[in-house]
């Protein structure tokens, strides 16, 4: 039983093709059920985000599965195969698990270390589980990926530090003010970044957001978008007095806030800091304002520098994250291999148990003369002998280093003990303890 993956991502396909192959516009559960029922051994997960569409299945015949899944994509998305065949990537077993683990870690994302992808992977698994489309193989695979995501986030700095100007500004605000509830924000001029920053601040629970712009309509529009209120341009300086965070982004060629303006609102009357984010180019706020003790003045270059430093730091964490992925891939592979030996181990145990019971039955007439506890003792001893004999071979079969060796050994065991031959029927042949806590049949 193999893990098989087929998909497209932002690495291999342009956005218009990805949009056509996206599963999330229709019921993903329906797609998962279709794949699980017809193209796999009953296990399937579909991972569909704006940057990737990937199908994971358990399959006995990956080569056939590849063609069948391509056909499925054609019919499901109503696209001719030639349109996307060259953009599709496929992976099996180790390569498939490595791909999924890298995706969950954020290593395959457009912005390395972005946080949403792990949640998306978890959701994809959840949908498949709800539709009963997962079994032991994909369950273990996806849980492994959740583990990787968690390890990368806690053991490396891959997901740390703001990587957009708006987020960087909000992170700074939190380092200055701690909690943002009750803080007043003033937005001067409504542009893209100031809108984004105001939205982030609102989602962080900031108090009032006042917006002012030379064009009243812009101010009104942003005010309704972020649940704030518009202030006439003429009252800007008044609004300044009650603001803790000021975002300026006007198109003005000359500074609109001078040192005198800021000094008028800081000083004895206000003891708390004033955080000014000047996104405008040319700058809206006089540079000398940063000399005022209570003021923290950051312009767009400063924020860009922070973002750059964070991106560099993230890049430095990539190798550590890759190391974690490699470790976890090895762990998953060892698990997968040990499972490959399970049918043979089970068959071997069954054979030994059959022999034990049939011998005991044969001697029943002679054993009948013994008292009950002596008979129980005999039963016990034979059982223990069988257990001890099976212990080492079972461990060895599960711990073989590679697929080829495992196939060779399990084949050898099957032949040596004629495991595939029909054995004489014996009582309770199904009650065989494999000796493992989570017995599974694949």
């Amino acid at each position, binding site marked *: 039983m193999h893990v098989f993956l087929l998909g497209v991502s932002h690495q291999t396909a342009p956005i218009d093709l990805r949009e056509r192959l996206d599963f999330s516009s229709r019921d993903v559960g329906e797609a998962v059920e279709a794949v699980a029922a017809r193209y796999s051994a009953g296990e399937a997960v579909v991972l569909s985000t704006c940057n990737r569409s990937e199908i994971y299945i358990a399959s006995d015949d990956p080569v056939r599965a590849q063609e069948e899944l391509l056909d499925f994509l054609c019919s499901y998305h109503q696209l001719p195969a030639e349109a996307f065949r060259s953009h599709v990537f496929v992976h099996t077993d180790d390569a498939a698990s490595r791909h999924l683990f890298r995706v969950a870690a954020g290593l395959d994302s457009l912005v390395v270390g972005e946080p949403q992808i792990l949640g998306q992977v978890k959701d994809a698994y959840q949908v498949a589980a709800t539709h009963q489309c997962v079994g032991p193989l994909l369950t273990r695979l996806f849980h492994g990926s959740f583990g990787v995501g968690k390890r990368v986030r806690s053991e490396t700095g891959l997901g740390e530090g703001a990587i957009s100007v708006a987020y960087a500004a909000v992170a700074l605000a939190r*380092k200055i003010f701690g909690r943002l509830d009750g803080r007043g924000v003033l937005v001067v001029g409504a542009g893209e970044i100031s809108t984004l920053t105001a939205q982030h601040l609102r989602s962080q629970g900031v108090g009032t957001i006042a917006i002012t712009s030379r064009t009243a309509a812009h101010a009104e529009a942003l005010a309704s978008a972020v649940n704030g209120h518009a202030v006439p341009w003429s009252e800007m300086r008044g609004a300044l007095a009650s603001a803790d965070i000021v975002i300026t982004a006007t198109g003005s060629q000359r500074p609109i806030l001078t040192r005198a303006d800021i000094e008028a609102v800081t000083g004895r009357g206000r003891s708390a800091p004033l955080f000014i984010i000047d996104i405008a180019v040319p700058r809206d706020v006089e540079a000398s304002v940063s000399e005022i003790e209570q003021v923290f003045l950051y312009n767009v270059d400063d924020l860009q520098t922070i973002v750059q430093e964070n991106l560099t730091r993230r890049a430095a964490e990539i190798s550590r994250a890759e190391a974690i992925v490699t470790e976890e891939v090895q762990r998953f592979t060892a698990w997968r291999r040990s499972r490959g030996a399970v049918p043979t181990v089970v068959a071997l145990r069954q054979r030994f148990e059959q022999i034990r019971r049939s011998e005991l039955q044969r001697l029943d007439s002679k054993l009948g003369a013994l008292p009950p506890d002596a008979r129980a003792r005999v039963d016990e001893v034979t059982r223990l002998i069988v257990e001890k004999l099976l212990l080492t071979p079972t461990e060895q079969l599960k711990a073989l280093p590679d697929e080829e060796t495992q196939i060779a050994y399990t084949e050898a065991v099957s032949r040596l003990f004629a495991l595939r031959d029909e054995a004489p029927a014996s009582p309770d042949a199904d009650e065989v303890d494999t000796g493992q806590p989570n017995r599974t049949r694949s």
Partner: protein
Amino acid sequence: MTILPLLLYVASGAAYGVHFARREPAMGRTATTLLLVGVLAHTFVIGMQTMEVRHIPFANPSRAISTFVWLLTLSYLYLEITTEERAMGVFILPIVVGLQTIPALFPGVENADPVLDSPWFWVHVASLLCAYASFALASVLGLTYMLQFKEIKKKHLGYLYTRLPSLLTLDTMNSRAMTVGWVFLTIGVVVGIVWTAQARAVSPDDPNLQAMVFNDPKIFIAMLTWGVYSFGLFARSALGWTGRRAAWLSTVGFLIVLLNFLPVSYFVTTSHTFQ
């Protein structure tokens, strides 16, 4: 036995250091746990000493330091648990460890001078020790504030920036610690004055009591400390001296406290020795 709290504090300090550097939550919890166990052991030691002399141990400088460390650790734990900020541990624990080595290595002997049996007296000392513990905390918070302020003002958002609490949190904690400290300091000083008057009425010839005047170094510096912190509180509310100015004040104030505690206690005072 007295070395056990010290060892636990050392272990806890190491854990706080690792937690600060790597920001692993599990290590932070380990640090807090070790500190709690250390405080427990320390409480036990202090409890035994209290039973021995029937008041909180403070009459010899060594034991006073031990009690001070105990109060400091308790205050820090309170602050950490209520704010859920573990970053400060790496700054507080070195002070705890450094000071606790003194009683651990030089235990000294507690004496049972009868003058110390007055309840006024040990309220006086307990109050002052609480005050000094608060001031120690405030000064560390103030120093941390200054570090964080510099990182943000200079726009070098580096190692410390990511690990330290926010500016306003640090400032609020500093303010609280200074206020609490000032309250205990005032109580301690007032009780000291009352007690002196009382004790003089009882034993007018005691040379120690005679020396308890304003120009005894220890008393003078205590009044100076009270002055500095009173000004600090006034300046914060009336003059808007928050942030860095408050931070400086709390550091200066605590340096004076340290001055009083160590050199003055050991070498210079006449009024506060009890033979």
